[in-house]
């Protein structure tokens, strides 16, 4: 019952390598602090703000206080829940909801507000100012639509369609894009099953026409960093009837990234540049 010194030395070296390797890999994949994923959202009055962040799988704390420097630094009510998890991370969704119009007014003071930063305090006492992307809060508009919503659907491949019926004769003057994301060709417009390109604007429609807006989130390729973000966009379809009354149709575009495909390392570098 003796030790073979060579075998023991080999075992210890292998042991040290296995431990160091695994600890290094784990540390490499660990986040120093929660990583917020950018959101691009255009929210009409009352719609909740959804913010998402990644934290290490064993982190037990969550967000406790959130304020927006660009919205009067008012405290906001929110719910937080786990949105998904991978081997190393869990993603939390912060759902900031507005119970009534007054809540929104408190933030917006009746004007449109653009939020790009949030001050988040976590349960562990840490407070960080994070880049949240671009979130627009718009006051509600009570106008009679020229296009009446008929049906809407979303598919699992990050696309969807909205069908409307024209309530009067008029024109579509254009599609308003407030984001500088340049995600081109996301919205396709069909008038009575015929595709209409932006170069054809203004496009006339008659009462009873079916106008379909189809969108599809297609990024350049899988390395396109924008595919890691959350989108809740409202494209404004600028319409006008023959009497000159303007009314915008809103088409909602929705995209949530797949948590397993999020490029955490790239987002961390991006965060570091902020």
């Amino acid at each position, binding site marked *: *019952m003796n*030790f073979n010194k060579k075998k023991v030395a080999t*075992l*210890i070296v*292998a*042991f*040290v390598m*296995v*431990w160091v*390797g*695994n*600890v290094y*890999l*784990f*540390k490499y*994949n*660990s986040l120093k602090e929660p990583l917020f994923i950018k959101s691009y959202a255009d929210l009409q009055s009352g719609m909740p703000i959804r913010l998402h962040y990644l934290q*290490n*799988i*064993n*982190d037990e704390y969550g967000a406790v206080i959130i304020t927006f420097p660009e919205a009067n630094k008012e405290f906001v009510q929110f719910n937080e829940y786990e949105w998904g998890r991978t*081997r190393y991370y869990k993603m939390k969704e912060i759902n900031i909801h507005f119970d009534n119009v007054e809540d929104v007014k408190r933030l917006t003071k009746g004007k449109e507000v653009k939020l790009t930063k949030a001050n988040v305090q976590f349960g562990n006492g840490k407070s960080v100012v994070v880049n949240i992307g671009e979130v627009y809060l718009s006051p509600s508009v009570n106008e009679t639509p020229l296009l009446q919503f008929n049906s809407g659907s979303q598919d699992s491949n990050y696309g969807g369609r909205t069908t409307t019926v024209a309530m009067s004769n008029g024109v579509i003057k254009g599609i308003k894009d407030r984001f500088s994301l340049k995600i081109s060709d996301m919205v396709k417009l069909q008038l009575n099953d015929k595709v209409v390109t932006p170069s054809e604007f203004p496009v006339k429609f008659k009462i009873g026409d079916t106008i379909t807006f189809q969108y599809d989130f297609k990024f350049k390729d899988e390395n396109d960093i924008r595919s890691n973000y959350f989108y809740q966009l409202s494209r404004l379809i600028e319409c006008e009837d023959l009497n000159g009354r303007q009314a915008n149709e809103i088409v909602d575009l929705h995209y949530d990234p797949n948590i397993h495909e999020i490029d955490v390392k790239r987002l961390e570098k991006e965060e570091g540049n902020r």
Partner: protein
Amino acid sequence: MYLSAYNKLFWGFILVVFNINLGPIDILPNFIGYFLICSGVCTLASQNKAFNKATIPSAIMGILSFKDAYKIQPASGFQVAVQNQSIPWIIYDGVALIISIYVVFCVVRGIYLTATERGLQELRERAKVRWRAYFITSSVMGFATPFLLNISSEWYILYFIWIFITFVAGFFIIGLMRIARNELGNDTVDNVDNHTF
């Protein structure tokens, strides 16, 4: 003469192998176990010098195990340990595992050599087989543990099965101490003199 020394080994290994926590407190603290083993092997060194080799490592383990007596963080996975502890503590865990295996080796080797001198073939073979079982199970666990950090949680079940197998191997080491107490514990100094010198 050596009965109480083997008893110390027996109880020492019980404290080391079994870990029962009452909240954050280990009610069977390892450090007491290692100091009992240290005390036992000090006495047994006069029966067989081989036991002497376990004295220092068991004393070191006794000191290193102080921190395990009170765990602020409940044992909820190796990741927690890694995330909440600094790298030196992780190195500490690895080094402690190697030393603890060495302590078992030195004690079992002492029994093996003493049994060989006494011509106790059965005890000798038992010591050899049980050491091998303990060494293999503990080493595999030592190698497997850091992988918990990076493998998917579906594999954890295999790890927990292996913990049980390692525990059984540790249980057999405790049993070996009991057998050694019965077969070698009643040695007198005269017997020792006859066999050793």
